[in-house]
């Protein structure tokens, strides 16, 4: 990724209003996605992966959210400081997003037609007739059969998988340059999951867009992404190309995640899990946020927060003892 990335998140800190003041939901997050690339962001729930993704288009509730530091560079613009009007042109036009729960992400009282035509009319200024024709094409494109009839249905008449296809149709309507997919398959059946991922892959190729795929499933990342960012407790703990990450995970947390993925090639009898859970964001931890769960933690891990260090060839990890030791212990 020698040339300028399509979008880069730099030192992003997002705070939410808590009972006792502002709490950091994510802190000092950095990542970038190149043109046509697919970036995976992985972590358990509470790791800050969705918070980071929603921050790109500033989709958090403004009353309870503060973008305390950082920038989101897109071309020569910073999306965090862009005026509302111009941000709206980016939203759905140049950068689109699909969400985890297709059941609640579609408006229950508007027809599918209404909801797909909206971005077309908004960003491309199409007439009602033209937008409708385009919407039917889009439904065809996301493999919804009988599109010209389905388009006048309300969302509750469609299955979960079909609704996610509709969401994808809405997202790619204006041929965006970047699609952010926030756990797009988590709420779906396993068989539907792979269909949806396959569809996303095809559309990515066809439109030539970049994709940021947020997931808790490393298996999905391995299949789909070129590069990956691992997040833990609101921070990036490791970032690397997919082959490098799976071959040589630098952070103990990443290693744990990889071990927790069932591997069909090997005859594994038992999946390992990482004991413990993510600390509450309002809890103050001086040192490494993973140290309470880390079997390799040493004294220095508890004392000062580790920084993200380059271990070579763009492979970064937030684990100084490991990097000093030169990789896997």
């Amino acid at each position, binding site marked *: 990724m020698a040339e300028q990335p399509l979008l880069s998140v730099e030192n992003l800190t997002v705070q939410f209003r808590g009972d006792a003041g502002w709490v950091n939901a994510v802190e000092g997050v950095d990542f970038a996605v190149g043109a046509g690339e697919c970036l995976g962001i992985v972590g358990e729930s509470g790791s800050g992966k969705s918070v980071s993704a929603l921050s790109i288009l500033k989709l958090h509730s403004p009353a309870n959210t503060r973008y305390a530091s950082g920038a989101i560079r897109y071309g020569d613009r910073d999306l965090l400081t862009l005026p509302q009007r111009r941000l709206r042109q980016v939203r759905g036009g140049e950068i689109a997003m699909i969400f985890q729960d297709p059941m609640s992400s579609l*408006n229950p009282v508007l027809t599918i037609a209404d909801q797909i035509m909206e971005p077309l009319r908004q960003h491309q200024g199409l007439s009602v007739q033209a937008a409708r024709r385009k919407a039917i094409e889009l439904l065809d494109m996301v493999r919804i059969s009988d599109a010209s009839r389905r388009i006048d249905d309300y969302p509750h008449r469609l299955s979960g998988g079909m609704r996610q296809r509709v969401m994808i149709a809405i997202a790619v309507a204006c041929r965006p340059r970047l699609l952010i997919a926030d756990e797009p398959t988590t709420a779906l059946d396993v068989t539907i999951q792979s269909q949806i991922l396959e569809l996303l892959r095809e559309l990515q190729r066809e439109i030539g867009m970049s994709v940021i795929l947020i997931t808790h499933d490393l298996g999905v990342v391995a299949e789909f992404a070129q590069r990956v960012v691992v997040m833990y407790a609101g921070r990036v703990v490791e970032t690397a190309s997919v082959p490098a990450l799976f071959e040589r995970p630098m952070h103990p947390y990443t290693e744990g995640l990889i071990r927790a993925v069932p591997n069909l090639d090997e005859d594994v009898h038992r999946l390992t899990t990482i004991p413990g859970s993510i600390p509450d964001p309002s809890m103050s931890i001086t040192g490494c946020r993973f140290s309470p769960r880390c079997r390799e933690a040493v004294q220095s891990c508890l004392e000062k927060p580790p920084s993200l260090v380059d271990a070579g060839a763009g492979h970064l990890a937030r684990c100084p003892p490991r990097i000093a030791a030169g990789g896997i212990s």
Partner: protein
Amino acid sequence: MFRAITVRLMQSIPVLLLVAVLSFILMHLLPGDPAVVIAGADATPAAVERIRRELGLDQPIWQQLLSWFLNLAQGKFGSSLVLNQTVLSAVAERLPVTLSLAALSLAITLPLGITLGILAAYFRSSWIDAGVMMIALIGVSVPSFWIAILSVILFSVTLGWVPSSGYAPLLTAGPGPWFASLIQPAMVLSLFQIGFLARMTRSAMLDVLDQDFIRTARAKGVSEWRTVGKHGFRNALVAVVTVGGIILSLLIGGSVVVEQVFALPGIGRLVVQGIMARDYPLIQGTMLLFGFAFVLINVAVDIIYTLVDPRVRYD
């Protein structure tokens, strides 16, 4: 659609019957003797007895109830003792006044109540929210007839902008005087409903604005105005429609008091006059009509509900 309305109407028949029985019971709870009212204070006992027989009041109560139902089945709601008029014609004569008042009041209530509720929800926890909710709270806390009297002192007596009482019919007096005679009562009447509606709309909108599809709308690049107005309010409307019946009920109830203050010859005033004059058939008939109207209003609300929320269907 036609089938849905039929089904819903059939379902409301038991309630309609009960409303009729209740109106009957209510009249028989009233103290005093209708025969005495008709015959006058200095009538002979024999004359009173004759009238009582004519009215069928000497029969056992269940027979009276039966004949009340038989009359209702023929569309006979009885005749007023005092007005020398059938109940239906007395109501029909005053209906335009009450309908005009209600329509004007709704025309004020709906846009204002809904807009205020949406504003408060959108700017939640801000000074706009606090201000709007304070206004709404005052609206539901101030007695309407008291505000009516204060309003008359200010706008009619002191400023002389509008008449303090009386009704100018739309057809004979023309729209100007009609409007002038109703605008003050309608505004007073709206005060409570605006407060009620604004509070309902706000809480419905608060629920809706937290939903995922609002985020989807924003992610599409839809303007805030459309996000809130179209995506948000179309959903909140479902909750607002469910209280439509309550609002109309409050409106009817409120109009009784407001018609009294502004001396508007509407149905509310008719009932109050009937009660004061112990005009039993009139009270019974108008109560029954109010009850019927309200049951039918609720049917209409249910039907509108199915139109607003595509997830609900009558089968």
